[in-house]
């Protein structure tokens, strides 16, 4: 097991290197350029030239990449072309809020999705199963911004139970538990929006995987041993049926970070997604590059975690 994890970690290194190349060149290929946001038709070509030299933009692209990479390895992600602040500092400032949101949504997806899927599978073709199926189709097909605005309309504007947006009020002075509860109120709706389609996907997957597992020969063996149906389902079938669900685990991480752009915008959630949307509007290439790199590495770590979980659940991979 330890050997397996070490192997996977080593394999991640060239992937990270590849990510830096892709990030850098995709940004270079994007139309416009870091200067577009700063110049007007009246800007003299001399000052443009000067700005380009200052940013190193007149050097060959390989050299630009090399310089960027060198800085990167020293933990310097460059400076915002928009407001001049360090990119890393800005991202790190936003990271906790985004992690809180995505991790909450992620945990919800599985903690809610798996039991619902198992219930659906073990009550196949019952009314509850049909109900859950309808729910999952709605969950998968409803656009998140629409769902988010619907929630805001109902729970914030009409009922007034929850705040419309943001992450805590600047006038709130509570501490300890009161503060946690105060923040929690802000978290509920964005987390619900982020997790809905994931819950639905996980549920569908868990359902079909469970149904398939329950048809396996070893389940018949387990029953033939005299085990109760509970033990058969939760001990013998569940672990096996989770193996394909872990695939969803890996896939849902990029979806969540992508979804964060929309959700954070809708709820003015002060995370990386919102930073990204603003950076796009400001043509802030350095920030975008930093965000892309950061997100890619988080996704990579997520997939690594998924692989390790595979090995944990399935002995055929471990050996």
């Amino acid at each position, binding site marked *: 097991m330890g050997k397996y994890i070490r192997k996977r970690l080593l394999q991640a290194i060239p992937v990270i290197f590849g990510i830096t190349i892709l990030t850098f060149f995709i940004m270079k290929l994007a139309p416009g350029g870091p200067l577009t946001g700063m110049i007007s038709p009246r800007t003299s070509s001399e000052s443009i030239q000067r700005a380009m030299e200052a940013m190193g933009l007149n050097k060959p692209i390989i050299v630009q990449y090399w310089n960027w990479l060198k800085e990167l390895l020293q933990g310097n992600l460059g400076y915002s072309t928009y407001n001049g602040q360090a990119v890393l500092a800005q991202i790190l400032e936003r990271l906790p809020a985004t992690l809180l949101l995505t991790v909450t949504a992620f945990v919800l997806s599985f903690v809610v999705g798996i039991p619902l899927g198992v219930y659906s599978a073990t009550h196949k073709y019952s009314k509850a199963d049909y109900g859950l199926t309808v729910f999952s189709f709605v969950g998968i097909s409803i656009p998140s911004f629409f769902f988010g605005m619907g929630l805001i309309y109902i729970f914030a504007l009409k009922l007034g139970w929850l705040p419309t947006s943001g992450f805590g009020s600047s006038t709130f002075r509570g501490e300890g538990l009161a503060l946690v509860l105060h923040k929690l109120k802000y978290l509920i709706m964005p987390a619900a929006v982020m997790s809905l389609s994931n819950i639905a996907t996980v549920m569908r997957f868990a359902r079909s995987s469970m149904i398939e597992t329950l048809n396996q020969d070893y389940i018949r063996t387990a*029953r*033939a*041993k005299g085990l109760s149906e509970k033990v058969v389902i939760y001990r013998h079938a569940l*672990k*096996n049926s989770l193996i394909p669900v872990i695939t969803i685990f890996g896939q849902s991480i990029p979806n969540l970070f992508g979804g964060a752009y929309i959700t954070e915008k809708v709820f003015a959630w002060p995370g990386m997604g919102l930073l990204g949307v603003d950076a796009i509007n400001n043509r802030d290439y350095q920030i975008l590059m930093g965000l892309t790199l950061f997100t890619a590495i988080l996704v990579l770590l997520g997939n690594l975690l998924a692989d390790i979980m595979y090995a944990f659940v399935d*002995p055929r991979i471990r050996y």
Partner: protein
Amino acid sequence: MSLLEVKDLKTYFYTDAGCGKAVDGVTFSVDKGKVLGIVGESGCGKSVTSLSIMRLVDLTTGKYEGGSILFDGQDILKLPEKEMRKLRGNKISMIFQEPMTSLNPVFTIGYQIEESLMLHKGLDKKAARARAIELLEMVGIPEAGKRVDEYPHQLSGGMRQRVMIAMALAGDPELLIADEPTTALDVTIQAQILELLKELKEKLGMSIIIITHDLGVIAEMADEVAVMYAGEIVEKATTRELFDAPKHPYTIGLMNSIPDVNEEVDRLRTLEGLVPSLYDMPSGCRFAPRCQFACPECEKERIPLKELEGGRQVRCRRCEQ
């Protein structure tokens, strides 16, 4: 008294195609310490019969429509599920045809045996482990103390079937049902597994129902044989009698289809024709469409199982005289 008495067992399946009488009025009994063989072509209801005894037929489509299964005198078709679970894997055990897929891939073989021991024998973890190793040794697994921590995928098919047998023995069963235990294995391993079963039967004094479509296995193992065709028993006799003088045209056909080493392979005789569909059974003798002795009389009504002198039974008009 017999250990197991199956009387007029009817297990039907209700599907979109209609009502399928997979087991239709089957009667047999197994005495203590004896081996009953059930033989027949694919789809004749052998597995459904054995699953009925375990009460493991899938009840989403299946239903026990009648008859009784007396085990030690009590009708297990009437037992509440909770009581039934105490018999399964304990007094009545079953091993299956597919050793490759019948063990749970995510648990060690030791765990899978210990689970039975803890459930039925009330052993604690440590005692269960010690006993599991003993059982693995008993079924002939070398280095049992090491193998106990391995996962099924680390074992060969023959070894896995041995593990299945060890697991089935965990509860000291009085009856072991072996549903085609060797079909999926290659010939040398087949012989070893049969040898093991015979040895265990002698040692532990349990009764065995061995299910197969291979008359060779029957000759090797069984004291008595029931030949099944299309959900019915068509002939029942001691192994000796059956091989000496098969009576039912279907049994005769089966005997003739055993490949003879002296014969060339391309002259291998198989039974002509197909098993009737479960959902479209002939109303008279179910074998009539394939029987060379069939006459209009045979197709009129169901043929009863008739007892001949010496106690053997045959379901054929020709044998009634």
